[in-house]
């Protein structure tokens, strides 16, 4: 067997938040694989646990949150896979992976950079943390990287502060900082949500181009299905802390199986110049994380609910066909038997 095609394998991940009011099961049993060199999009509405999943992969969960179960297997080019969960969240081992093998960019480019340190300082630091080179070499590298992400006059920009740049430029700096050590995985947590469509398009193109150049995997978190359609190879759909469907992008858009995925696709307005019509809507609201519905957590809003079944039985996450998994009782024999 040649190189494993999977880079990261998340198995049974559970991240819970222990608040005064009770336990919020933000991520509650998540399984998916991030393929090597490809783009995986994680879609979901607010409260679906997509951001917490991303941070769990890097062990960046703050109190009162805690990873309570599961593993995040990282397949290196050689040697045995490492379970990142076992590394703890402060030690040297996890630090050598953060920023070097796996990097992160955020939604808000305004707050993701320290307001009082120069761009140069923050980018070179990312290099010096992982590579034994001199400051001058690191500076040189940082300038090259800034140029590569399309920042005009990168040399001058090294001494600028974040507040002197526009939102789009700041996001480019974040990308430069994340990619300067040429990681194998870039986790992008809604990196374009706060930006205008025009800037968003440019940033998406930039990430795509850099991926072609550097060959890294991208885990892209978003709630915008349009963005998913533009950039994803694989798609994971999340609802209330669980993955409800995963497949390649074409299948998700043209042959979705889970009622939630289907409903989401129908509910977004499209630029299709159709006559005016009503959008198909999902009824109700995303439930509060404290009151997760019993059985299938989507049953309260599902159009294809099987009364008496979906409220009681928790669906398994099963592979329907190779590479296409769904968590829905419609496709589970056990449930069909009960229903019949």
């Amino acid at each position, binding site marked *: 067997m040649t190189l494993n095609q999977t880079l990261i394998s998340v198995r049974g991940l559970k991240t819970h938040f222990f608040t005064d009011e009770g336990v919020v099961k933000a991520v509650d049993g998540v399984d998916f694989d991030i393929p090597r060199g490809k783009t995986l999009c994680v879609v979901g509405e607010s409260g679906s646990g997509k951001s917490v999943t991303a941070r769990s992969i890097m062990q960046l969960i703050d109190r009162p949150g805690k990873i309570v179960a599961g593993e995040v297997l990282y397949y290196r080019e050689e040697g045995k896979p490492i379970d990142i969960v076992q590394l703890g969240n402060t030690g040297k081992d996890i630090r050598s992976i953060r920023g070097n093998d796996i990097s992160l960019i955020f939604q808000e480019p305004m707050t993701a950079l320290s307001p009082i340190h120069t761009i140069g300082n923050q980018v070179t630091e990312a290099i010096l943390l992982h590579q034994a080179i001199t400051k001058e070499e690191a500076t040189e590298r940082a300038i090259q990287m800034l140029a590569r992400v399309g920042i005009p006059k990168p040399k001058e920009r090294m001494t600028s502060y974040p507040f002197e740049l526009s939102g789009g430029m700041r996001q480019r700096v974040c990308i430069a900082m994340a990619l300067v050590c040429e990681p194998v995985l870039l986790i992008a947590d809604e990196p374009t949500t706060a930006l205008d469509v025009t800037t968003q398009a440019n940033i998406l193109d930039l990430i795509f181009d850099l991926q072609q150049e550097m060959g890294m995997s991208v885990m892209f978190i978003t709630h915008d299905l349009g963005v998913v359609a533009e950039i994803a190879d694989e798609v994971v759909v999340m609802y209330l802390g669980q993955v409800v469907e995963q497949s390649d992008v074409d299948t998700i858009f043209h042959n979705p199986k889970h009622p939630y995925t289907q409903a989401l696709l129908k509910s*977004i307005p499209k630029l299709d110049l159709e006559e005016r019509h009503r959008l198909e809507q999902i009824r109700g609201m995303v439930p509060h994380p404290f009151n997760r519905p019993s059985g299938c957590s989507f049953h309260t809003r599902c159009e294809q609910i099987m009364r008496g079944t979906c409220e009681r039985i928790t669906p398994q996450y099963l592979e329907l066909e190779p590479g296409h998994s769904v968590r829905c009782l419609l496709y589970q024999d056990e449930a069909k038997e009960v229903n019949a």
Partner: protein
Amino acid sequence: MSDARSTPLLELKSLQKHFPIHKGFLRRVAGHVKAVDDVSFKIFEGETLGLVGESGCGKTTLGRTLMRIYEPTGGEILYQEESGKIVDLAHLNRQEIRPYHRDIRMIFQDPQSSLNPRLTVLEIVGEPLKNNGIAKGRDLEDQVAELLRKVGLRPEYLRRYPHAFSGGERQRIGIARALALNPRLVVADEAVSALDVSVQAQTLNLLQDLQEEFQLTYLFVAHDLSVVEHIADRVAVMYVGKLVELADTRDLFLRPRHPYTEALLSAVPKPDPRLRRKSERIRLAGEVADPANPPSGCYFHPRCRFAEARCKSETPALKDLGKGHLAACHFAEELELRGVMTEKAA
């Protein structure tokens, strides 16, 4: 369609809103941000006019100036009353404007901050009714309950406080408040931007249903072009405080006449992986111009792929290109610009 509409419900004539920039210890005025600069258009009864542009283009300021939340620096806001009389809202004082705030209402972007957390739903939705002496006591309660029913909320929720509701439900409360006085025109300022995808569809449907039921006219301010395409009859595009294009929705999306509109449309991600990169995207270089210090000539020229010497020196006027399609570009007639690609077209 536009031929049938003779007199507009509302007409803006050269509306301006300039914010002074203060500098130094004595707070001297050092310049002006021309947030809205000479904007003119009409809104006809019963239609939905979409208003789009990047952030900082002045679309929200326009909506707020029209509501007289901001005092206009210049221009006219001509409103036709039901009796047919035309008033200039821009030149009324604070007292005189009040009756018109019954006819023209507003829905805010952030359902969190636009509802006073210290008041119950009854008090919030009932506020306009009470202030305008329309109802009180038991009657008020019944009317508010009825309004809640109309926007799809349970009337039993009357005594709850905003914190007991989700974002989508709060936006419905905001819509109920806007409807309370049987308005004719509703300014919806990014009314669905802060909502989740599934809730956004519910809210858009609700707005459409209400429009049909009450013959409402909407000025729909948004940055999401897909949403605007879905809900608007006509669309106005703004760039750095100026109107650059205005046309029927289909017309504008199919065949834009301003390079900025073309670039905006091209940037919208299409929710179908099979359409991916069928057409090369138009990359819009640089940033939105600074409205405090805009470029010469056509404000868009530094980012325009068709810009010529003339664009740098000469400000283009908003021209009528027929069928009510307006565009402010020197080459509006000559350019062949790309509109949206539909599945069928592809």
